[in-house]
């Protein structure tokens, strides 16, 4: 049996008793905090939820190359250019680790890419915003990748083995992303008043979208409990958002920037920060494709697929032609 075939469903052949035994084995594996692996039996809902989550996570990484990639040819120094190039290349890598994990569940990379381009699957709303200055590169590293780390660290313990392993690699690399961003901002904040103003402007634009990255409030996520029980989701959206705010406020103070929320304040009783209301209408509009750069992001991904199709075909033809030759 090949390892790239999708997991076998219980199927009509499996009688009720066998299906119950499989379900019980699955639940026992989860209860013992062991990992589910590709060839294991798993409930159809578990598999589908994972494909949705992993595929769209992969799409976000791939689309996420664009906002920062826009600055590759305008980097202020060779040092910054080399760093940014490494970072954008990492995002491609993260997307591919995740497509690889999704494929162990019976998904297919080319098909997932089609679904993204057709708008049937989504990517993170955060990448539909424009990058207006080089300070945006720093703020994306600090705030956007900082928020991603909050989301992603718990995923290293995801119940699905290939996903958890991909996330371990990704989290190691995200740490570089966040630190290079913060260092870039520290450098700019030690610069001219104009440079400091660029940083503040970028913070003003990215702060609220970064809070939206954690998704709607828990009250609006009725099926979270199932994902929690499956070990796919480890913390609630609100919990992760709160953790992010508490981590970020002191970093903003150190940097010397103001987070654009007049209601932001430390609650002395809990040691946690209160913050203002998030504009969920904006979030839903952007996620649905109505963000400032949504159309451009997908158009570019479509062009990358279609304009490079001849490369895929030519390499396939070359491989077919040489397949019968003895290997040196």
């Amino acid at each position, binding site marked *: *049996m*090949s390892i*790239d075939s999708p997991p*076998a469903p219980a199927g009509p052949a499996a009688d009720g008793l066998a299906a119950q035994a499989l379900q019980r084995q699955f639940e026992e594996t989860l209860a013992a905090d062991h990992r589910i692996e590709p*060839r*294991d*039996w798993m409930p159809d809902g578990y598999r589908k939820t994972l*494909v*949705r*989550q992993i*595929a*769209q*996570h992969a799409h*976000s*990484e791939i689309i*996420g190359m664009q906002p920062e990639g826009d600055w590759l040819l305008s980097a202020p120094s060779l040092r910054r250019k080399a760093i940014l190039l490494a970072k954008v290349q*990492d995002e491609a*890598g*993260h997307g*591919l680790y*995740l497509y*690889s*994990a999704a*494929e162990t569940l*019976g*998904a*297919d990379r*080319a*098909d997932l*890419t089609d*679904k993204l381009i057709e708008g*049937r*699957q*989504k990517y*993170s*709303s*955060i*990448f539909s915003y424009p990058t207006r200055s080089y300070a945006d590169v720093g703020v994306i590293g600090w705030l956007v990748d900082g*928020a991603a780390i909050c*989301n992603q660290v*718990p*995923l290293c313990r995801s119940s699905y083995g290939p996903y958890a392993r991909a996330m371990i690699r990704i989290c190691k690399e995200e740490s570089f992303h966040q630190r290079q961003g913060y260092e870039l901002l520290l450098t700019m904040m030690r610069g001219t008043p104009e440079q400091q103003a660029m940083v503040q402007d970028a913070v003003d634009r990215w702060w609220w979208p970064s809070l*939206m*990255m*954690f*998704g709607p409030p828990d009250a*609006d*996520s009725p*099926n979270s409990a199932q994902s929690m029980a499956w070990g796919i*989701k*480890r913390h609630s*959206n609100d919990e*992760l958002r709160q953790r992010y705010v508490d981590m970020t406020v002191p970093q903003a103070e150190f940097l010397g920037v103001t987070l654009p929320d007049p209601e932001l304040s430390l609650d002395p009783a809990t040691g946690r920060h209160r913050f203002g209301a998030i504009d969920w209408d904006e979030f839903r509009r952007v*996620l649905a494709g109505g963000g400032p750069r949504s159309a451009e992001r997908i158009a570019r991904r479509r062009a990358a697929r279609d304009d490079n199709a001849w490369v*895929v075909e030519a*390499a*396939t033809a070359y*491989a077919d032609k*040489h397949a019968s030759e003895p*290997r040196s």
Partner: protein
Amino acid sequence: MSDLTAEGGHGAVPTGPDVPVTPAAAAVRRDWPLWEVFVRGKRGLNHVHVGSLHAPDPEMAVYAARDLYTRRNEGVSIWVVRSADVTASSPDEKDPLFAPSGDKVYRHPTFYEIPDDVPHI
């Protein structure tokens, strides 16, 4: 709108039933074949499976594996194998396949009781 989970990595993604997951056959046929990648982290260690990738032929698969899985000196040697060529035991056959070693505790050194004062054993 369907459920949105923060676990979408770089942002919340919808996970409700309106998000399709079943692959369309036309897209599957278009892509390059899948390869499993094994990396030797350093001399003295075995090659270990690290993931998979798509590539048109073995040579390109090795180059892609270098770019994808060893960007930070994670390896000194790479193997690639067509995923379709891997034969796997199925966990469903777990009991019959692995049962023969289950009852042979005498294969382990801890099975044997040796007095504490015997040296070097």
